[in-house]
């Protein structure tokens, strides 16, 4: 009984080994990589499902298939070269890896890129000669992803490249880099040299920035922030490309870490030509605007008195009149001044003296009026004030006019020749009524001025409520 039991046990173990062997084979059958074993004549003596699927054959038909015939004549030479090398390795430890397209022949019409690994198999039987195994991985999807990525990189308007800590270009990830930097060969070139060539005036900023890149190599990525201030000085760099304006780029640097320390840098080049030109246009427009404003000021502002000219008066006082008519103002008074005996000052002390009097009277008017009032040098020694009044607490035209008159009368004006004079002014005050026009108001103010002059000068003549 004992020997029968031993026999049974042995049979059981054999069955288990048989099953284990079959499981292993099924694993090989179903791995996604192509797996084949070839004999000395490169005939398939073992193939898995991936291979059968690739060649469109059953396992039976794939057996003894001429493996080399699946490659184009050019690739066949490469393949045979590798086979020869492997079979020539007496130590059986060669591990050959290479990329080669399979197909493109009558048997497999579509060529597919594969990554192959070759191994020698040690065995007993000499009938099959030197046996080798191949494991191949289809790179088609990888190539397609790479193509897609390349086309994305190629289409985005950014230059992407990798530089080492010395600023030497190691990888160009987007073709746009060549366009932006106006350079054909970038690999191995010094990015800092290229940028310096186009921007010699940025020598300091560029040296500082690339110095930071050098210094930060080997540091933790978190320390990169310490150099960002220096980097940010490289906002706009010019690249001359033969065009009128040239090209303007903005470089940005991102650390590429290896084991959490900075190893290399990703450089992102952005074309900022449009925004640069727009910025220049805005600056130019601002200058032009300021010049236009200055010109306008010249036109509307009397340089001697610092008051508005008649050019400004017409529109501005007309607007006040319209506003008063709409009931938006409680009162609008027009005050007209005329310096007394001004001609004799000019005649006696010269025009410089006359100008000094005008200048001083202008200053007095400015100090006695508000921003909302409109003060105009109307003509030689004539001045017009438009004084809007919004509530009853505000002082009316007559009070303001009187204050100006009194202040002038009290002021000793120092002339350029060192002498001092006292000057007076007469004044007519008219109030805006419902049907008034600018011309009508000025005319009435002029009439009251004339009356004041006639009554002895250095005084006011104010329109009564009835308009007399």
């Amino acid at each position: 009984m004992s020997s029968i039991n031993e026999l049974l046990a042995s049979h059981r173990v054999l069955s288990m080994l048989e099953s284990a062997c079959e499981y292993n084979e099924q694993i090989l059958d179903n791995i996604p990589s192509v797996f084949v074993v070839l004999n000395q004549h490169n005939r398939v003596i073992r193939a898995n499902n991936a291979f059968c699927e690739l060649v469109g054959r059953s396992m039976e038909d794939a057996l003894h298939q001429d493996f080399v015939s699946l490659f184009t004549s050019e690739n066949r030479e490469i393949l045979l070269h590798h086979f020869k090398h492997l079979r020539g390795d007496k130590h059986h430890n060669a591990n050959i890896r290479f990329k080669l397209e399979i197909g493109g022949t009558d048997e497999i019409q579509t060529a597919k890129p594969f990554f192959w690994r070759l191994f020698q198999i040690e065995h007993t039987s000499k009938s099959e000669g030197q046996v080798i195994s191949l494991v191949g991985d289809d790179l088609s999807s990888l190539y397609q992803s790479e193509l897609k990525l390349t086309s994305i990189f190629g289409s985005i308007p950014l230059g992407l490249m990798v530089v080492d800590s010395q600023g030497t270009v190691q990888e160009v990830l987007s073709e746009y880099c060549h366009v932006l930097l106006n350079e054909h060969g970038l690999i191995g070139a010094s990015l800092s040299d290229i940028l310096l060539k186009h921007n010699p005036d940025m020598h300091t900023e560029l040296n500082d920035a690339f110095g930071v890149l050098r210094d930060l190599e080997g540091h933790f990525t978190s320390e990169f922030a310490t150099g960002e201030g220096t980097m940010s000085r490289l906002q706009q760099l010019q690249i001359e490309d033969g065009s009128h304006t040239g090209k303007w780029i903005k470089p940005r640097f991102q650390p590429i870490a290896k084991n959490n320390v900075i190893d290399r840098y990703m450089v992102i080049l952005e074309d900022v030509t449009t925004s640069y030109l727009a910025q220049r246009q805005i600056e130019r427009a601002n200058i032009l605007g300021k010049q236009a404003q200055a010109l306008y000021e010249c036109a509307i502002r009397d340089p001697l008195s610092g008051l508005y000219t008649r050019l400004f008066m017409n529109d501005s006082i007309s607007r006040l009149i319209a506003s008063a008519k709409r009931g938006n103002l409680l009162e609008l008074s027009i005050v007209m001044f005329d310096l007394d005996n001004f001609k004799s000052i000019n005649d006696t002390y010269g025009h410089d003296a006359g100008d000094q009097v005008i200048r001083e009277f202008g200053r007095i008017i400015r100090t006695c009026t508000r921003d909302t009032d409109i003060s105009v040098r109307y003509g030689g020694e004539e001045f017009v004030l438009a004084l809007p009044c919004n509530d009853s607490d505000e002082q009316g035209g007559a009070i303001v006019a009187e204050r100006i008159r009194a202040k002038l009368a009290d002021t000793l004006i120092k002339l350029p020749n060192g002498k001092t004079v006292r000057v007076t002014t007469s004044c007519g005050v008219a109030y805006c009524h419902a049907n008034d026009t600018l011309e009508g108001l000025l005319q009435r103010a002029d009439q009251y001025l004339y009356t004041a002059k006639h009554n002895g000068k250095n005084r006011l003549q104010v329109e009564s409520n009835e308009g007399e």
Partner: protein
Amino acid sequence: MDAQDSTRSSADGLRTLLRDVSVIQASQYFDGQPIELIPSPSEYQLGQVLTRYISMVLLTSGELRVVFKVHFNPEQIRAYRQSKGSQPADLGDRQIVDFMKELTNQMGGRVCRIFDAHQMSMGMSVPLCTRGIYEIYADYTPKSGAIVKFGDFWRLEGPFQSIYCSCYVELMTKDDLSGIKAEDEASQEGELDFL
């Protein structure tokens, strides 16, 4: 007849015996259909990978040891069984493998019975099946000396298209065994214990 002649005669006889047994048993197994034997087919050499699967048994006696293999492609056997009305559940690779292991078992069993008929007790292993690629690890090196070793292979053509048989024999006796023939076993059929 000297020992060398006797051994040579035994080897030739055993070759013939094994070939004939395979033909007779295969014919029985495949519904009595005629089987043609192609000895040492020229397209292959002994020891090459002939098919996708190998089914084998080990036969042992005091006089000799035989590794007997049947090489087959499941697709061909499947096509045959399909033509005989087998259900899809019986046509998987595993079922085909079992079917061919049984054939191998029957071939080995027949050899055992033949030797038993000549009062030579012969034991047989359970049939095992593995992939054809493992043939590259088989040793068919012929040897002479105290133990004579030789291999042989042949093709059987029949309703299953073709299968191959191979054997590797280790002959430990100098007795002439050429008198043992394939037809000698009939009297003991059905009496063998399968373990």
